[in-house]
Every structure is written in C-alpha cells, then in structure tokens.
C-alpha cells in the first residue's frame, strides 16, 4: 500500500550495515559495557538460554498471531529478563540470534525496537543509534503498509511503539540542537545528506498514513452519526475493521495531538481529536493506561496554552482522579521495577501525574475553582511547596512590582518542570542559526508568561470583590495600593476590571455541543470562568456572586447511604457473632432496629425527589 519513506529506507540500508560494522568503534558506543560484548566475539557465549528461548517464543507467537501469549511475553517475560540479565548492559544485537531472527522482517523489527528502547532508556545513544533506531521505525511503518493483514500485537505494545517513536523524535531534535559544525563536522555532514532522519514531515506522515489506512476518522464520524455496526465495518474496510488497526489508528490520532502540541500548533493538536467525541471511554482504547493518561496530559496542557484554564482544570482533574484510583497498582508496579533496577511504565505515568498536579496548580491560581478534596490534598504533596505557597499567596499579595515578579518566577518554575519538551520542527541542516534562536521551549514559555503577567491581579481583585456586594471604585483602588491622582487611579481600576472581563471569558468545552452532537475539543461556548459577576455603574461596582443552592435531598441521601452501610456492617458482624456466641439474639435485634430506621429515611427522601 503506502510507501512510508521507502526511498529513505533504501538509502538507510547501506547506512545500517555500515554502522553495524562500525559498531566496534568505541566512540560510537553507548557507555554501557557494550565493548565487552564485542570483545567476547563468539556471540553464542553470552546468550543465556532464557533469552534465547524468549526470542524463539516471540518469533513463534508473532508468526502464529498468538497475541494472548504475546501479551505475557511482552508484559511479563521481557521485563523479567531485562531485570535479571540486562539491568546493567544492553540486550544483544539482533544479529547475535542468527538467521531465525534476522531473516524474518517483522520479528527483526520488533526485536530491534525493544533493543533500542532499552538502549535509549538506559544508555546514552550515539548519533548512529538515533539513525538506526529511526530506520527500524521506517521499516515498521513500511511493514504495516505493505502487509497490513499479516500481524497481531497487543495494544500495550502498539502504544509503547507509538509513544517511543515520539519520545525519540523529541530526544533527537534536542540532540541535534547540541551539534555544531565545529564540534561534530561528520554528524552535520551526514545530516545534510540524510535530511529525512527524524524529519518532522516523516513523523507526521507516519501518523497520517496510519490514520488513513485504518480509516479511523471515517469510522469515528460514522459512529458519531449513529451508523450501525455493519455500516461502520463497510466504511472501515477489511483493514480498518481489524481491532488492531482501530487501536493503532486511535494511537496515531493521539500521536498527532502530541506532535502538534510539541511544535506549538495547539489548534491543530485539538483538531486531531475532532471526531473522537465521547470515544475516550470506548472499552477498545481503555486498557492502555499510558495512552489514556498521556492523552489527558497533552489535552489539558493544550487547553492551558490556549488560556482555556477552566477546560484545562476539568481535564487534569478527571485524569488525576483516575490516577488516584489506580495509585496502588501503579505504586506496586513502580516499586517492583525499581527493585529490579529497570524503568517501568508505571514510574513514568506517576511522574506524568506529578507534572499534571503542577499544571493544575498553575491553572487553578489563574482561575480559582473548587477542586475535589482528594486533589487538594495531593496538590499540597506533589507541587514544590515553596512554589505552591507563592502561587497561593498571589490572591493575598498586593500588586507590588517585586511581588508580581516573584509570582511570575514561580509560574516559570512550574512551567519548566511540567511542560512537554518542545521540538524545533525546522529542518536540517543545523546551522549556527539554531544556537542564536533561543529554544522553542523558551519561546513558548515566554508567550505563556506574557499572558499570565497580564492577569496576575485577577486573584487579588477577586478576593476583594468577594467581600462586598457594592464597592466604590476608589475603595478598591485603595485596597490595591494604586497610586496617582484620583482620575488616574479610577482609570487604572477600570482598566483592571476590563482585563478581568476579557481574561475570564473563555471558551468552555461541553460534552454535548449546541447541535446535540458530541462537541469537538477545539470548540466551546464563551462563558465566565469566575464564580462571581460584577457590573460597574458610574463609580460603584455591584457584585453578584454565583451560588449553589443546596438541596436537602443530597444531605438526606448521603446520610441514608452511610446508615445503610453501617447497618450492613453490623449485620455481617452480627451473623459472625451469632455463630460465635450464645447471646446472638440481642445483636440481631439491634441490627433489625437499625435496618428499620434506614427504611424510614428512604421513604422520607422519596417525596423530596418527586418535589425536585
């Protein structure tokens, strides 16, 4: 079908051989004891049987499409072997396994991907490693396009491939930025010859091509329009209706979201998920936690960069609650991996969660919102305490120049820690130009901080407005320590209030759009993000606070539920006691009384429901 980068692949073939031959050059080697491997020339010697049989099992499972067993091989056997044999060295090169591995293209590709992922996670990749690993990805995508019906892989593995692909793209552009003609003339020369290496067009092309071949967007559109399963299958075609391609297509949409976000194209990032609508909860995509969490991280971050803080908070809150629920599982996995000395997905996801707490703190400082109690507790734990304190104090400090600078510095710190790594999409070659430009990270951070600086006074103003229903402009000016003639001071307060109006009207995403269909993420209705409204009449500010009127029904419901749980606990305990001791009757009488008392509130609650 598609020719993803075939030309480049053809070009790369000799290069790959070359670098395999050149692998003995010590300077090309990662600092892990790789040399040693090559010194022990007889390749068979350092291959433990377990590793050999792992590769054989992998080959058998892949060729027979046994994906249930592949899941075990990938998620259990591979990490275990890595921990026991390769925690301090690299996996053997593919060639070490002889023709069984190297002659089957797919198995060879999959093994090499594992090899390079392990190398990138544990060693310092050389220039040659970046090129070789890129070539393996090119081969992988070419294989998909040329033989789309030939293989089966577990979802987790597919996600890890897509995830690692973007990660290496980011890593390479950062690596590229460190190359100068003076220090690395050979590398620069090679890059000039091979502008395709980790080229942003090729990365995007891979994702677009997979999305196209899997017809994922067409399927999502059909689903949104209420097409039947048969109709969707017809639209998807024989390739697109395979679950593997649905999952891979979905992952590639997430890949597009990420690639656009890290090149600063926030609008296109959101539009990549345009047709997804409510499909986040589709059971097909749900089992891969990494994908779910990463998606929300990039979605929330993109909203933040679009100054849609309310949407960002909603996005982060929902996924952080999800992580909180799975916390125990992640912590166990992370601890197991840590004790084995290997990197694990769980560790990375928990770290991503910590970053999201920092971003949540940023958004919540700019747009104060009532957060779930569990999040408030975790926020205090996860965000650098000194920084959090400064940000929180933003609502109480006055607008002194020094105070504002300190708050901005705190925002900058959190952004530096929690933002994704941006890439410079500009193509090769890397001239000195790159050095004089400032990194994309700095540019995006500056843009973000410039917008934040304009709204630093909002939390302070809000804290005063909340105390009054009517407040003269001059009095507010006094609170804010504004200086100047009365006319100047009033003009300044009016300006601050106008900025309030402009900054707090943000587009907000709703699950269902005005047309009754799921709303795409890039759309939304303009609404105030603050919990109070005001209007200025001449020299007087009239404040109206938005309120929630509490209904007693909820209180009754919660108390009833609690009572029911207590009663049940007593009944269970009571039954045990009956078996254990003779005076059981007293216990059961007590629990019967409680059960009866539970029944009454339920009846009491029912009319409330009817009334509301």
């Amino acid at each position, binding site marked *: 079908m598609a020719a993803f980068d075939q030309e480049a692949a053809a070009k790369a073939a000799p290069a790959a051989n070359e670098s395999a031959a050149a692998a003995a050059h010590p300077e090309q080697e990662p600092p892990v004891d790789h040399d040693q491997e090559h010194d022990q020339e007889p390749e068979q010697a350092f291959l433990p049987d377990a590793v050999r049989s792992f590769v054989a099992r992998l080959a058998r499972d892949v060729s027979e499409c046994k994906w249930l067993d592949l899941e075990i091989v990938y998620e259990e056997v591979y990490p275990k072997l890595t921990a026991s044999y390769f925690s301090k060295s690299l996996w053997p090169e593919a060639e070490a396994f002889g023709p069984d591995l190297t002659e089957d293209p797919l198995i060879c590709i999959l093994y090499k991907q594992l090899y390079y992922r392990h190398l990138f996670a544990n060693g310092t990749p050389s220039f040659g490693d970046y090129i070789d690993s890129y070539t393996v990805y090119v081969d992988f995508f070419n294989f998909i396009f040329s033989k789309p019906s030939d293989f089966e892989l577990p979802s987790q593995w597919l996600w890890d491939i897509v995830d690692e692909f973007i990660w290496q793209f980011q890593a390479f552009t950062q690596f590229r930025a460190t190359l100068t003609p003076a220090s690395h003339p050979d590398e620069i020369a090679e890059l000039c010859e091979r502008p395709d290496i980790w080229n942003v067009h090729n990365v995007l092309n891979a994702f677009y091509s997979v999305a196209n071949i899997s017809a994922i967007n067409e399927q999502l559109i059909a689903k949104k329009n209420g097409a039947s399963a048969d109709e969707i299958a017809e639209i998807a075609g024989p390739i697109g209706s395979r679950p593997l391609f649905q999952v891979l297509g979905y992952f590639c949409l997430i890949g597009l979201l990420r690639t656009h976000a890290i090149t600063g194209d926030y609008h296109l990032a959101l539009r990549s998920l345009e047709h997804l609508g409510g499909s986040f909860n589709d059971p097909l995509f749900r089992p891969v936690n990494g994908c779910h969490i990463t998606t929300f991280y990039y979605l929330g971050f993109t909203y933040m960069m679009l100054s849609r803080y309310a949407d960002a908070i909603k996005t982060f809150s929902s996924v952080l609650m999800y992580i909180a629920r799975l916390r125990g599982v992640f912590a166990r996995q992370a601890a197991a991996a840590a004790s084995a000395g290997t990197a694990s997905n769980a560790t990375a996801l928990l770290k991503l969660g910590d970053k999201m707490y920092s971003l949540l703190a940023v958004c919540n400082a700019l747009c104060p919102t009532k957060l779930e109690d569990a999040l408030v507790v975790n926020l205090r734990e996860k965000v650098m305490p000194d920084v959090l304190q400064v940000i929180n104090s933003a609502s109480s400090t006055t607008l002194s120049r020094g105070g504002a600078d300190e708050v901005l510095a705190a925002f900058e710190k959190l952004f530096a820690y929690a933002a994704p790594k941006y890439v410079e*999409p500009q193509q090769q070659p890397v001239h000195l130009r790159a050095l004089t430009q400032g990194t994309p990270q700095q540019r995006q951070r500056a843009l973000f901080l410039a917008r934040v600086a304009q709204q630093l006074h909002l939390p302070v103003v809000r804290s005063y407005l909340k105390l009054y229903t009517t407040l003269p402009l001059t009095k507010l000016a006094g609170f804010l320590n504004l200086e100047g003639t009365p006319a100047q001071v009033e003009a300044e307060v009016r*300006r601050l209030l106008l900025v309030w109006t402009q900054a707090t009207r943000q587009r907000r995403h709703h699950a269902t759009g005005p047309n009754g269909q799921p709303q795409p993420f890039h759309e939304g209705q303009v609404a105030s993000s603050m919990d109070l409204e005001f209007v200025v009449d001449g020299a007087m500010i009239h404040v109206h606070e938005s309120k929630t009127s509490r209904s007693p029904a909820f209180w009754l419901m919660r108390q009833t539920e609690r009572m029911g749980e207590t009663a049940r606990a007593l009944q269970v305990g009571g039954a045990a006691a009956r078996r254990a001791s003779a005076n059981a009757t007293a216990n059961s009488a007590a629990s019967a009384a409680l059960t009866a008392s539970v029944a009454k509130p339920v009846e009491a609650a029912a009319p409330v429901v009817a009334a509301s």
Partner: protein
Amino acid sequence: MEYDEERLSQADNQEYNQDDQYEEEAQEPVEPLVPCPPNRPMEIHHIVDTVNRYNHNLIPNLVEYVQDQLVNDHFDRDANLALLKLYQFNPDRADAPVVSAILQLALGALPDVDFSLCLALLSKPMLTDRAVQALCACHAALESAHYKSFWQQWNAKSGPKGSDFVTSEMSAADSESVYEALDARIRRFISGSISLTFQSLAAAHVEEYLALSGADLAQWAETMGWTIADVNGEKTVQIPESAHPAPVIVREQLAITNLTKILSMTA
C-alpha cells in the same frame, strides 16, 4: 542560496513524492473529512483539511487567500494557521509581510485567542521582525485594556497599518476599506468588553476607549444598543441591563439515578 535550492529540491523528492506515491497507491483522491465551512473556497478547503496542508508548493494559494480575507472582511483560522505552519516547517519560504497581515486578521478575531495561536508558530526571525513586534505591542495593549495606547500605536504613521503586504498588493481604496473593516472588528471587541463590564460610564472614557467622538460615537453607540444621556451634567453612556450576564444560581437536582445505591439496599 545555492545551498537552499538544493535543500528544497531534496525536500521535494523526499517528502511530497512520498505523499504522492501514497495517494496513487491508495487509489483514492484525498477528500476532506469535514464539510467545507461557508465562505471558504473549495480549493482552499482541499489544502487545509487534507495532507496537502504540508505541501509548500501550495503556499502561494494560501497567501492569495489571506488577501481575499482582508478584502472581504472574513477570517479563516485554519487556513491562516496552515500557512504559518508551512512557514514554520520551511523557514526559507517565510514571508514577514504576509505574517503581519495574518496577525492583523488575528487581531480582528479577538476575543478569540488567534493572535497567540499565530505567535506560537512563529520562529525567532519572524518574532523579531519590526512589523510583527509592533503588532505584538498592539495585541498586548488590547489584552491589557490599554485601549488608548492601542489606538495610538495602531494609527501611528510608522505603525503596523501600512503593512507592505496590504499596501503593495492592493489599491489605495482597497487597503483603506481593509482597515475600515479591521477597525470595526476591533471596536466591536472593545465594545463587547465595555458592555460586559459597565452599566453606565462617562462618554469621555468611551471616546478614549474606542477612538471615536461626537457624531461617530453617537452612531456607534446606536449600533451597540447603548444610549447617551446627560447625568448630573456629564455625558454618560448607558448600557442596557440585558447586556450583563446574570449571576449563575445552580440548583442541586437529585436525579433518580443518584438513588441507585439506596434503592439497592432496600431490595
């Protein structure tokens, strides 16, 4: 120069041929997935909503469309961002006057965040362009409600309004009408903020905010639904109650689904 040419031709071979090959082999023309929005020519839609948006050979089509938007007082976010993305990926093709024309259109799109979206795609050489910097200053003035300062910068002789792209590509009459339309868009944005913030405000301030006075202001006030009256001897702009958002009172509603837990207990 020689070097750049070589690079572009390489890029031609390596990237777009791939796309072409892909399309040929897939044997289906690339059709946009979403319907064409009103006011957007079909030809542009085929560029913006397909992988053609990465084909730098189509830059001239998008540049021409920027001019269409200026002349017809129209704004197409996706098309303009697509053009900026092409400049981002092919920095040698980036054209500062076109960039500042897009930024002017984006100013007219306030209160949406288009201006920031555009800035996020610009590379450093573009960001340091004189006209682009002048526009950034205008945008910052608008966002921080320094309206008076905005109009001064915007209308300054050496300011962004004399953009090479607009003046060199259009007749004087055309470029005048372009700026009339842009001014009106920006006034509508400022008026929107005023409407939401104030119930009554001295007309002198409004004159300053909108850079309008006398009959012009009276006419503008009428289109906005404002009235100008004398209050205590001062000319005051009064904004109708309906312009202000009502405070939100959320009433908690207990749905029967909330009660599933309790109902299951009684079962």
